[in-house]
Each structure stands twice: as C-alpha cells, then as structure tokens.
C-alpha cells in the first residue's frame, strides 16, 4: 500500500494519525450539527476548536515532525530500525515532543494568568455584604 513512499513521509503520517486519535473527541464535536451539540460543546466550537485542529494539522504537527526528523532521528539513528516502523515511531514521538509539550506549557501559563486576573483584588472579608 505504501510502496514507493519515502520513509520520512511515515513520520508525518503517523504524527497526523496520532493527532486524529488524540483529538477524536473534538473531531466528533465538529462533525455534529449545531442542534446535536450541547451548550458547552457549542461554546468550545465558537471559541475556535476548528481553528485549533486546522492549525495543528497544517502547521504545528508538521513542524514538530520536521524538528524530530532534524534533531531526534540523527541522535537515535543507530537505535531505530531503518524501516517504516522506525520512522513511524519517530512520528508518534514527535507529536508529544516538542509540540504537545510546548502547547501544555503555554496553556498552563495562560490558564494561571487568567485565573490570577479573575481573582485579583477580589478576596473580601465575610462582612462584605452591603453596598459593595
């Protein structure tokens, strides 16, 4: 089925397939019609779920896979079999690092920032019940 494909293409292919598996919940939500979605699901779609997946498919996952090809593969060349499976494994790993790791860090910083922003100066004593 994959005869004639360069081995490097399996890095991209496996990384993209893993992306589909990891984001299967989001993809399911996107496939649903507006009426079928719950209120929370619709909110997530409105907040850019499609954009998020498209960016991952088109930009982040290929970039992560390319970095893996450039950096990880040469380092582990002797340990990884020079076969489709070996390249596919690098692709699987490339989804987790660097892309997913960087995303997790950025989201964590953003989440903590928003939490702090929402909570800034709001801690009030219990007698704070009149007139604001």
């Amino acid at each position: 089925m994959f005869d004639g494909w360069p081995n490097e293409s399996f890095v991209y292919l496996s990384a993209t397939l893993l992306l589909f598996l990891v984001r299967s919940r989001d993809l399911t939500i996107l496939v649903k019609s507006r009426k079928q979605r719950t209120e929370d699901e619709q909110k997530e779609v409105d907040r850019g779920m499609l954009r998020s997946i498209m960016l991952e498919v088109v930009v982040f996952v290929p970039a992560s896979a390319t970095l893996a090809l450039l950096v990880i593969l040469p380092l582990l060349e002797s340990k990884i079999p020079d076969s489709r499976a070996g390249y596919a494994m690098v692709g699987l790993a490339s989804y987790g690092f660097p892309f997913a790791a960087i995303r997790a860090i950025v989201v964590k910083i953003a989440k903590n920032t928003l939490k702090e922003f929402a909570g800034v100066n709001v801690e009030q004593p219990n007698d704070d019940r009149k007139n604001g």
Partner: protein
Amino acid sequence: MIAKTGKSRRLFSWFRIAAVWFADRCGWLTFADARLVQRYLSRAKSDHAHTEQLVGKPITVAIGGILYSDVTDIRQMLENVFETVQRMTQSPAIEKTEYLRKELNRVLVQVRDVRDENDKIQREILEVYNIAELKGANRSIVIDSDLRKQLIIALNVDVVCSLHSRAVRTAALNKVLSQLVEHNAPSNLESN
C-alpha cells in the same frame, strides 16, 4: 488603567500576555470564558499604551457601589487607611512605614463614577445575579465576591468599593496598600 503593583507587573508581563494571546489565537483556550480572555488582553493593551504616561502607581477605583453619586475624596480615604496601617506598624518596621508614606504620596488614584458609563454592562452582570435595582439612588445592594470579581473585570478597574460600607472599602484599600508594600517595598526600600 492598571495598578502598577508587583502583582500587576507579573500579571501583565510580556511573556504572560504573549502566552494568553497565542493560546487564544490558536484555539487552545476553548475552556476559558471568552469575555475574560478579551478583558485580559484589552487591559494588557491599554496598560502598555499608557505605560509612558503613568506617574507613580495608578490605581483605578470604581466607587459608589455602582449606585451612589456622592463621590468623596478617595485620597482622603487612602490616607485614613494608611494612618491605621501606620498605627499598627511597630518600630522595627519603621522603614517600611516610611516607604509606605512615600508610596502613598506617589499613588495616583483614578476615580471613576461608573454609574452611567457602563450601565449596560452592569445591568447584564446584575441580571445574572438577579439584582434588579439599578437605578434606586439610596437602595442597598448585596455584592458578594463573585459579583465583585465580575465587576472588576467588566469595569476594567482594580478595586470596586462603596463609600457607604466602611468595612468593605477599608478591606479593599488595605489590600491595595498591602500589595504596594508586599511587592514593591523589598526591592525599592534601598533606593528610597
């Protein structure tokens, strides 16, 4: 306008702003309230736009409990709070007290009477909390911490306090002052 306390400086560092902006653009914040993200980013933008013009430590205070019109001297209120803090401060901390006095003199307090300018926003928020009396000039209103949080974000201010509730305004302003001490005193004491 942002209070230039240490907390605000951390909260609005370029690194954090970039993280929120990027995550939002990439659609990674689908779990977060869109309005909260929007307010954070717009406030960060306004902070940077005004940085060059800021003198001392501006604090934006929405007063009047969003209902009342009698705007008294907010600086006097701050000074009263300061006197209380000073009385409570013992001699070992005298340097900090002196610092606080200097800081207080540098505080530029922005007072906003927000009864009308953000009426629509207020109504939306208050309706969520089933509070209907918006216009009653002398009516009381219950503001719990959740509502206060909403108001602070919605009105884009640092403190929401009422002139009619001494406990609340003292608590709110004490918090501002304690932030000034906590976040600025250690690093600035020597230079001051």
